[in-house]
């Protein structure tokens, strides 16, 4: 028997807060961190340092954009950093290297190198997508395998060496500036804008949220759920690839394991920002806040007197706090709806 409640519940501040908890908490954290570091260190509150934070966050940001799509559908991609690494190495593999770099590479023209690399990256995404939707391997496991595969590709291509040369376009975009702003920041912001527009204003974006919100209901509404999940896995691989190409130019070299920290950073950014691990809630706006929280934290801890080893622990604790809020916000929201 259903108990009928025919009227809408009146507006209540408590319920509003409960529902918006996932959006309010990260912004609040960001404000507190900025105020804290600004009062503690003069060197923190400069324009140069702001650009520094943005520049440090931009490569992670590009990966996090793709990851946002994946997490919104309640899937996960653990291969992002490994794919970025492999793609970065691959673009170097297609470029003439200095004599002292002992890699049996295949130099081609710059733009061909970029296209080949992007195609390889698309293929990796396609394989993940097929594994998850075609075969039915849980994304957690499938992308774990893909992580190993991409790391293997990296290892095979560089064989312990370091490559230094990249196509000119990549070098410019990865390490150059435009009107005094790093190209990586500009590209990251552009990708974020496009991703936000896609998620908010297109049919595909709506499907991403609906599949994350209730996969079964989406399927019974005639949404091609497998197609949507395959698409987000490919989008994520492409974002990782772009981040990898720009990243190697940003670092000035391409070598094994140089993106290792990016996996955790990108996932942390998405989750700290408040995008639900259960899918269907959040978005690029949340990811931006999450990136800034992590960026400010990383940067700020360098500006104050603190044991550099303690930094790692503090980041871990912040991530834990964000996870607690993420899961708690979901429950609060559900009870507020009852």
């Amino acid at each position, binding site marked *: *028997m*259903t108990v*009928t409640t025919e009227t*809408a519940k009146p507006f209540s501040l408590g319920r509003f807060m409960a529902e918006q908890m996932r959006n309010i908490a990260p912004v609040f954290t960001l404000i507190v961190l900025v105020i804290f570091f600004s009062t503690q260190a003069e060197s923190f509150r400069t324009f140069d340092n702001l650009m520094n934070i943005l520049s440090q966050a931009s490569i992670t940001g590009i990966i996090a954009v793709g990851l946002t799509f994946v997490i919104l559908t309640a899937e996960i991609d653990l291969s992002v950093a490994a794919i970025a690494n492999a793609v970065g190495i691959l673009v170097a593999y297609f470029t003439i290297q200095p004599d002292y770099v002992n890699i049996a590479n295949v130099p081609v023209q710059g733009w061909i190198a970029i296209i080949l690399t992007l195609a390889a990256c698309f293929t990796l995404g396609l394989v993940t997508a097929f594994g998850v939707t075609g075969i039915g391997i849980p994304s957690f496991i499938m992308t774990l395998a893909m992580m190993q595969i991409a790391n293997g590709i990296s290892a095979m291509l560089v064989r312990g060496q370091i490559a230094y040369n990249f196509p000119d376009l990549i070098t410019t975009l990865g390490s150059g500036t435009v009107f005094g702003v790093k190209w990586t920041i500009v590209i990251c912001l552009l990708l974020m804008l496009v991703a936000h527009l896609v998620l908010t204003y297109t049919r595909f974006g709506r499907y991403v949220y609906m599949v994350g919100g209730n996969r079964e209901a989406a399927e*019974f*509404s*005639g949404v091609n759920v497998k*197609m949507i999940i395959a698409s987000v896995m490919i989008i994520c691989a492409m974002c990782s690839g772009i981040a990898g190409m720009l990243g190697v130019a940003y670092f000035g070299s391409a070598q094994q394991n140089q993106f290792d920290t990016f996996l955790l950073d990108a996932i942390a950014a998405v989750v700290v920002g408040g995008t639900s691990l259960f899918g269907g809630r959040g978005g690029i706006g949340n990811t931006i806040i999450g990136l800034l929280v992590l960026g400010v934290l990383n940067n700020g801890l360098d500006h104050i007197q603190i044991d550099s080893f303690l930094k790692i622990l503090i980041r871990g604790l912040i991530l834990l706090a964000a996870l607690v809020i993420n899961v708690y916000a979901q429950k609060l929201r559900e009870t507020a709806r009852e």
Partner: protein
Amino acid sequence: MTAGGLTPPAGSVSDAPVLQMIGVTKTFGGVQALRDVDFDLAPGEIHGLVGENGAGKSTMMKIIAGVYHGFEGEMRVDGRPVHLRSPADALAAGIGMVHQELSIVPDLTVAENVFLGVQPIMAGGVVDWGRMKREARTQLASLGLDIDPSTRIGSLPVGLQQLIELSRVLFSGAKIIILDEPTSALSPPEVARLFDALRRLRAQGRTIVFISHFLDDVVDISDRVTVFRNGSKVITERTSALTKDSIIAHMIGRGAADMHMGESTELSGDDSRAVVLSATGLSDGQMIRDISIKLRRGEITGVYGFMGCGQVELARALFGKGKLTSGDIKLDGETVSFRSTATARRAGIGYVPENRRMMLFRTEPMYKNVSIAILDKIDRFFLRPSRERAITEGHIKDLQIRPPLPNIALGNLSGGNQQKVALAKWLTEIPKVLILSEPTRGMDVGAKEDVIRIVRSLRDRGVAVLVLSTEPETILTLADRVTVLKRGVVAREFSSGHIDKADLLAAA
């Protein structure tokens, strides 16, 4: 685990009831589920328990099995009053229940499942595997089963899984065993094997309650039958004095002068109407076998059957969900094969599943729930939220959805209104075929009438509607022709003439 008193004398012939329920009344939130019911069980009998959905038989059994506590009335086991607070209490008093949804762990072995939670332990907390397997084998043998105890239980057919669960209940010392719909998922040979096991148990002096919709099975196996209707006991009678038809008459209260809506109907199937969708020989290798059905333009086809008869699988198959091993579906005369629900939707098929959770986004606003199935018709690439809201407002007006706010999160609506939203999803672009599973289940009267009106108006606009329900009233209220499913096959088809509930119950 305690032995729970002495074992009853073997082959006791006394008629002293092993269990007595006296004057039991149970209320759920102001609704009386049981009204002053007396019920008893004799030692060494198989007692059939029948009644329509909601008649009170499950409530009574859940009280007996300790699932519900807090009721008016008295419960006596072997003449002594007992107060059960949990299923564990009931088991200690010798009462065990095998639910329709089995509680086995598919990835564990047969032996582990029989001993679930009570594994024999050797010194040092190590599980005594040898003893476990030996005793499991003996247990199963007492039911006439020869199964290797180290088999993974998930690899066995459902019928055996059920018997293994039954043996677990037996093993924990139950002398009264309640079986809820034990035959609904079984094939005829499996039913025969179950009955064989039940007769062995009866010979051992155990008492068995057999709850079932399958009246043939009840008549076949039970010694006595109790019929429930509307929360009251209608009759307890020796099975030899009853027939299937007389049981049906007791269940639906034939003889009561007034016939309610949905008790009977005049079918108006018209074979001259164009066939929109025709399915031939559908099988999925598990739940449905060789089902053929034709859906006609401007007609409501009803599919009736008990839970587990294959309705759900049939509906899913027609909507491109679930794999078919054989069979062929024609839409407007052309063979179609739906690779996904999206293909089915684009071909002009709409589907509302039996459970609202399966089709609605509770935390999303109403308009997004309505528009999800037509986004591509509104615009190929971009969202038009103002169009979506306008469309939703139209449906709110037509279907009288309350509250009339397109932006309200759907979870805030009542069940009936949520059901209307689920229907509204398919009303903007009228589909060729609309499949509705349990369209009125659990709704209050007003909402029910609204839904019935909507479905009829769709039919009148030329939609081929398929209504699947386990409630005969729903079928009799809506259908122009009826197909009855029984254990995955078409048992009977009615296309014209007068039918009533008894006909449906007798066919299923």
